[in-house]
C-alpha cells in the first residue's frame, strides 16, 4: 500500500484517537473500549454494505458467530483463548460463505429479507439451545480464561489498548481491501452490477468474497468483544444488532474508511446520553435513521468528502 494522503490521514486520525482516549477520564475510556470494538463490527458491515452495496439485515449472526464461537469454546470446552478466538473467526467466515452461497442468488430487497431470516433463525437457535447458551440472560466468561498470549484482557488499561489496536487493524485492513483489485471490482458492482458483469468480472465470486471478508471481520469483532468484556448473550444475535451496524455506517458515511468509527462513537454517545433521561433510548436511533435517510444519505464523512476532501477513501 503506497503511503499517500488518504493512508496518512487514517493513520493520523488513529494516532490522534489513541492520544485522546488515553487522556480521557476512566468512565469514557470504558465507553471507548466498547466503541472501538463495535466499530470493528461497523467496518466489517461497511465492506459489504458501503463498498459492495449489499444491504444485509443479518450481520448480527456473523458478530454473534464470533461471540459464541469464542465464548462457548473458551468457557464450556475450556479451549485456550487463542485457539477459541481463531475458531470464532472461522465460524463467522464459514457462516458468511454458507449464507452468501444461498443469499447471493437474490438481490436488493430479497437479499435483505433472506439475510434477515437466516439471522433470525440463528438467533432463535441460540434461544433453542438455552441449556448451553443461557439465552437472553447470557453467560460470563470467567476472568482466568481471558488471557490472550499472556496478556490479561480483563484489566481496563489493556482493554483500551487492545481495542485501539483492533480498530486500527480493521480500518487499515479495510483500506488494503478497498485498494486491492477486488476492492475496485466491489465498488464497480455497487455502482453498476450489470456493467461489471458485462466487462467480464465474476460478480458472484466478488460479492461472495466481500461477504466472507465482512463476516470474518464481524466475527473477529464479536470474538474480541466476548474476551474483552467477558459477556456472551443472545441480545447480540437479535435484529437490533443487525440494524446497529447499518445505523453506524449510515451515520458515519457509507463507503468511507473512517466513517464507521465516527458513526459508532456518535451513536454510542447519543444513546448513552439519552438513556440517562429515558428508558426509551432507542427513540434516538429511530429519529437518527429517519433523518439520515431523508437529509444526509451520504453520512458525515461522505458529506465532508463530497464538499471538501474528495481524496478521502
Amino acid at each position, binding site marked *: 500500500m503506497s503511503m499517500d494522503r488518504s493512508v496518512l490521514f487514517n493513520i493520523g486520525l488513529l494516532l490522534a484517537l489513541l492520544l485522546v482516549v488515553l487522556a480521557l477520564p476512566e468512565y469514557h475510556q470504558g465507553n471507548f473500549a466498547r466503541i472501538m470494538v463495535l466499530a470493528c463490527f461497523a467496518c466489517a458491515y461497511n465492506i459489504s454494505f458501503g463498498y459492495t452495496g449489499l*444491504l444485509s*439485515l443479518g450481520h448480527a449472526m456473523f458478530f454473534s458467530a464470533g461471540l459464541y464461537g469464542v465464548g462457548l469454546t473458551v468457557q464450556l470446552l475450556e479451549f485456550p483463548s487463542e485457539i477459541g478466538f481463531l475458531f470464532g473467526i472461522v465460524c463467522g467466515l464459514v457462516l458468511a460463505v454458507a449464507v452468501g452461497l*444461498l*443469499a447471493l*442468488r*437474490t*438481490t*436488493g*430487497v*430479497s437479499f*435483505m*429479507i*433472506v439475510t434477515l*431470516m*437466516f439471522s*433470525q*433463525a440463528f438467533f*432463535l*437457535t441460540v*434461544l*433453542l439451545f438455552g441449556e448451553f447458551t443461557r439465552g437472553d440472560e447470557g453467560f460470563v466468561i470467567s476472568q482466568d480464561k481471558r488471557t490472550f498470549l499472556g496478556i490479561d484482557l480483563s484489566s481496563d488499561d489493556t482493554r483500551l489498548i487492545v481495542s485501539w489496536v483492533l480498530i486500527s487493524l480493521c480500518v487499515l485492513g479495510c483500506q488494503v481491501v478497498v485498494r486491492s483489485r477486488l476492492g475496485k471490482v466491489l465498488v464497480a458492482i455497487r455502482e453498476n452490477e450489470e456493467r461489471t458483469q458485462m466487462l467480464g468480472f465474476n460478480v458472484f465470486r466478488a460479492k461472495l468474497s466481500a461477504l466472507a471478508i465482512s463476516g470474518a471481520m464481524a466475527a473477529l469483532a464479536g470474538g474480541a468483544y466476548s474476551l474483552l468484556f467477558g459477556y456472551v448473550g443472545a441480545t447480540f444475535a437479535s435484529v437490533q444488532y443487525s*440494524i446497529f451496524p*447499518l445505523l453506524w455506517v*449510515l451515520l458515519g458515511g457509507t463507503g468511507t474508511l473512517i466513517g464507521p468509527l465516527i458513526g459508532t462513537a456518535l451513536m454510542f454517545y447519543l444513546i448513552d446520553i439519552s438513556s440517562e433521561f*429515558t*428508558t*426509551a*433510548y*432507542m*427513540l434516538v*436511533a*429511530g*429519529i*437518527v*435513521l*429517519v*433523518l*439520515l*435517510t*431523508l437529509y444526509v*444519505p451520504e453520512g458525515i464523512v461522505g458529506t465532508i468528502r463530497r464538499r471538501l476532501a474528495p481524496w478521502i477513501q
Partner: protein
Amino acid sequence: MELGPHILLALLESAVSTAVLALTAIGLALVFGIMRVVNVAHGEFFMLGAVLAWWITDQLTAFSPAVGFAVALVLSPLLVGAIAYASDRIVINRVDYDPERTIVATVGLLYIFQQISLMTFGPDARPVEPPFNTRLAIPWLEITEQGWAVYWPWGLSITSYKLAVIAISIVLLIGVWLVLSKTRYGLIMRATQQDKDIAQAFGIRIERVYGLVFAAGGALAAMGAVLIVPIQQAHYLMGGDPLLLSFIVVILGGLGSLSGTLVAAAIIGLSNGMIAVFFSPTLAKILATLLVALVLIWRPAGLFTRSSR
C-alpha cells in the same frame, strides 16, 4: 384430554390467531403489492392499534365493555390509518419509494413508534375486557359399546368472543376483497399496481393512492390488533411477531395475490399454532423463517422479482 379433542382445541385456538394474522398480512400485502415497498414498521401499526384500543376502552369505562370495545374497533384503526398516512407523507414519499431507502426509513419509524409507546403507554402489558365472553362447551363423538355417543370432554371449549373474532375477520376480509374488485377505488389501486406510469397518464394521482394505501395497510393491522387485544394483552413490544409472520405470509403467498396471501395466512397461522402447541414455539419459528429464506432463494419469480427494480 385425549388426542382428538386436544387437536380440535388447538385448531380452534390457531384459527383465532390465523384470522388476525390474515388481516395484518393483507395490510402488508396491499402496501407491498401496490406501492412496491416493504414496510418494516407494519408490526408497530399493529402494536399502536392494540395500545390505542386499550386507551380508548380505558377512557370509556363508564359505559359497558361492549360500548368501549365497539368504539375502539372503529376509532383505533382510523387513528392508526391517520398515523400511517402521515408517515407516508412525511417520510416514505420523500425518499421516492426507493425500495432500500424505504426499508431503512421504516426501520427508523419502527423504533420511533415503539419507543414513543414505551414512553406514554409504559412497559407493562395491559388487558382490554372482551365485550362478551361466554364459554361454549364443544361436544365430541366417541365409539362406545352402544355405537357412537356424544360427550362433552372436560376443557374442550371456546369463548363466544373468540368465535366472534373469526367471524368479524372473515367479514372484514370479504369487505377488502369487495372494495378491491368491485369499486372504483379498487380499480384505481389495481391500475396503479399494474403500471403506475400508465395509470398516471390516465390522470390517476399516484401519490394520493400511495398515501391512502399506506393508511389502509396500517388500519388493517390495527383492526387485527383491536380484535386480539381482549385475548392477548397490549404491550409496546408486541409488534415483532405479527411483523415476522406477516412477512412470511406475504412472501409465501406471492406478490399482489390477495387469495395467495389468504391461503398462506391459513397455512402459516394454523401450522404455526399446531407446532407451537405440540412442539416448541421457537422450533416452529425457526422452521418458518428458514422456509421463507429458501422460498425467496429458489422461487423468487412471482414473489419478489417484480418489486426489486
